[in-house]
């Protein structure tokens, strides 16, 4: 018997219960085919309501201009840029899971990749709203596109990190979308083949791009996944790197620090995983997918949260230390007065950031805590808040008291239309997620089926006898095919 894969009994199975292929299809397609529940309608309506408020807020801004947001002083941008960076950060876990973890052959990604990728795409859509509406005269938006024109000197400034953002985010969005959608094809075809209603047959038929499940299709599917993984791996890093450049290329104290790029990326993955936890802890329960998104999955993601949280912590402390070490009075002021000094006007925000992002995730050192769903959910919210405050700290505490004391402005509050815009993006995000959870399988059924023969309860059971076999006998029986 040529063994293609072996998994130690020491590892917990990634799919619980002895499943057949058919059961997997049933379990995962059931929520898509059933009528939406009351809970779904309630959540969806609320999201749409928020979205409508957002549309109203944006309309006000488009008609009356950015003055609606009190943007008559630099720090007035605090709220808006914070929200933008917050969303773009959240949009990082999906592609990390789908691409980097695919390259690292992490089997556990299979249970969570679909939902995480969808979340990524929605978060990037939300983030994308900010630069668009921040333009003020949004109908001039095409000015960012570099093409021969008659506008004379009005030409994209290629030296500006803000323009790099436009390219980075749109590339990231395109590749993430391709990755997500191409992964969906086999599952959409299953839904098409199972559909009884005409519109469902039509809808999933068109969406499945004529997937027939032939060997050729699968072969191309696998190659495409690898190519896209290779392409998106640098993209996971590039997007938040460039967002960090928005700040770090400046000479603003607290912004100009060389560790920003990798530290922003770690923070983005951190916040992205927190959002994945927020969504999945609920989704797996509501849709009854606990056997596919197991406690094991939740625990692994909590490990990533403590890891990335601690990396971010090291970066915070490095910044703080070097601000002092540099002996630069401006850096010192930005860090020691505007941030660390709790009695300064925004000092409190620094402690919220430290508390939520660095200290509280340390609870995940304890295994029991990593496997506690209620705590996981609570922590994921806390991290989302903490990461929002990280951007708030960076933006507001650096610019409200910059070089020129005459330009200092400690009073800062977002207007109702600014808040409305933000709530609107939250509405947009959840509207998309609810639609996704209703019309698409939230777990990649086809990929789960691959995993059945690698890491399911049934497979483990079959492999049990090999575990106690002596190494020589094992090598004798199975090793020769593998160059041993």
């Amino acid at each position, binding site marked *: 018997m040529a063994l293609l894969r072996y998994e130690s009994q020491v590892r917990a199975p990634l799919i619980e219960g002895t499943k057949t292929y058919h059961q997997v299809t049933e379990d995962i397609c059931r929520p898509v085919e059933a009528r939406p529940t009351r809970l779904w309608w309630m959540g969806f309506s609320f999201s749409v309501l928020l979205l409508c408020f957002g549309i109203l807020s944006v309309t006000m801004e488009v008609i009356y201009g950015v003055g609606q947001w009190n943007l008559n002083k630099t720090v007035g941008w605090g709220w808006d840029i914070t929200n933008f960076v917050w969303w773009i950060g959240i949009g990082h876990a999906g592609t990390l899971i789908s691409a980097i973890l695919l390259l690292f052959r992490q089997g556990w990604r299979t249970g969570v990749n679909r939902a995480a990728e969808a979340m990524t795409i929605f978060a990037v859509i939300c983030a994308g709203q900010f630069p668009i509406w921040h333009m003020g005269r949004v109908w001039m938006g095409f000015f960012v596109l570099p093409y021969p024109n008659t506008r004379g000197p009005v030409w994209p400034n290629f030296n500006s990190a803000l323009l790099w953002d436009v390219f980075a985010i749109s590339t990231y969005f395109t590749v993430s979308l391709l990755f997500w959608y191409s992964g969906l094809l086999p599952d959409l075809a299953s839904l098409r083949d199972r559909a009884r209603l005409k519109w469902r047959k039509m809808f999933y038929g068109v969406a499945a791009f004529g997937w027939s499940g032939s060997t050729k299709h699968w072969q191309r599917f696998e190659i495409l996944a690898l190519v896209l993984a290779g392409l998106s791996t640098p993209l996971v890093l590039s997007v938040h790197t460039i967002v960090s*450049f928005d700040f770090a290329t400046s*000479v603003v104290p607290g912004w100009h620090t060389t560790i920003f790029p990798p530290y922003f990326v770690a923070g983005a993955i951190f916040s992205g995983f927190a959002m994945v936890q927020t969504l999945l802890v609920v989704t797996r329960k509501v849709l009854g997918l606990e056997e596919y998104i197991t406690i094991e999955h939740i625990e692994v993601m909590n490990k990533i949260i403590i890891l990335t949280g601690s990396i971010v912590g090291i970066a915070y402390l490095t910044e703080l230390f070097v601000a002092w070490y540099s002996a630069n009075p401006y850096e010192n002021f930005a860090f020691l007065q505007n941030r660390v000094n709790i009695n300064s006007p925004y000092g409190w925000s620094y402690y919220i950031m430290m508390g939520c992002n660095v200290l509280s995730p340390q609870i995940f050192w304890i295994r029991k805590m990593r496997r506690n769903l209620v705590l996981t959910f609570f922590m994921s919210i806390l991290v989302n808040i903490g990461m929002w405050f990280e951007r708030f700290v960076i933006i507001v505490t650096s610019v409200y008291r910059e070089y020129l004391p005459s330009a200092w402005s400690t009073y800062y509050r977002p207007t109702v239309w600014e808040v409305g815009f933000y709530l609107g993006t939250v509405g947009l995000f959840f509207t998309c997620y609810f639609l996704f959870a209703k019309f698409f399988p939230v777990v990649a059924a086809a990929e789960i089926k691959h995993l059945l023969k690698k890491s399911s309860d049934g497979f483990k059971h079959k492999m049990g006898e090999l*575990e106690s076999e002596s190494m*020589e006998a094992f090598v004798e029986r199975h090793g020769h095919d593998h160059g041993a």
Partner: protein
Amino acid sequence: MTTLKEQFVIPKRYNTWSMALMGVGILCLIILFITHGAKSDQREQARFWASLLQNSVYFLLMTNAVMFFICATTLAWGGFQISFRRVSEAISTAVPVIGVISVIIMLVLVFGNNHIIYQWADPNQVKASHVLQTKSPFLNKGFFTVWTLVIVSLWWLIGAKVRNLSRSIDDKSLTVEQGKNFTWTNTVWAAIYLVVFALSVMSTIPWLWLMSIDAHWYSTMYSWYTWVSTFVPGCALIAIFIIYLKNQGYLELTNEEHLHDLGKFMFAFSIFWTYLWFSQYMLIWYSNQPEETTYFIDRLGSRQNPSPYKGIFFLNLVINFVAPILILMKRGSKRHYATMTFMCVLLIFGHWLDFFQMVFPAVMKDPVTGQTHVPFMLFDFGIGLGFVGLIMFLTGRSLSKYPMIIRHHPFIKESIIHHT
């Protein structure tokens, strides 16, 4: 029945080579001492000590990065590394020895009379500089000594613990339950090591040992950059030992699949190194603030007055970025012994060169004109070869002492049936 060659017998030629390389190192050390170290001019002496500092710290951090590799993959429950784990363990036994050498060199620099390298250790220079005075709670002899000793001892002790844990199952087979406990204990120690690593290599240690050579300059990226610059050659070191042992007929359970994975690490982290290099350089170039640009001006100069380090500066990028991205991207090259050997040697040299340009420009700088100059590098390279010989010797000794296969490890069978 398959029989595996579990016991490494050090071939005669291996010993000859390691002794010869160490001999070359000592010879170069003596030559460099006579030509520079023994001179009365402080700048000449510093040139000698800079070579020792660069080489010892580079090879210490590199072998320590091998322990980092072990602990990171252990923490992530990576099964693939078990078939060659003894090789990584053997390399990491060099940490205490090179650690002691490095500590001695650094303490001589701190407590000796020559303060060209560590300006902050000179009370007169500190008195004259406001910046150095501000930094003195961190950059002072006491803290430097204590922290260096604490950290090197912790690397030593935790590394030894991790190795002992792996050896503890050499003659007893484990049940599934025992296997779980064993994996758990390993995970805990790997985590402890990584915490220490984060507080040392990822933050304080490069600031103290290396960044303080340019005592007025600072960059938050510096430590992470230093870490990657040692992790890539660390992986290369594991790969090159594997290839050697395979060619000698050992490590039957390790094959091109495992090598491929190591190649991926080398490739990925070479790109990551470039990413950090670019981020640090670009941000300093872009904002163009004199207190930060000095570092790169020493290495690049201006258009009118280019620095003699310019060639090394760009060669660094060619070797450590262009070569891996062109050569290691292909699947085949990561599975090909000769290509991998070539890349391993190239990357170990490439990052040695990186360390060279991190250490030397500030030391070889004319205090009056500010002009830097490049020393004749051949003897520095020779000292580097001495360390290579030392690592070969220590690795070989450790390999020959313990079985090369951890036969009872819960993940060994995963490592045998491994497809990348």
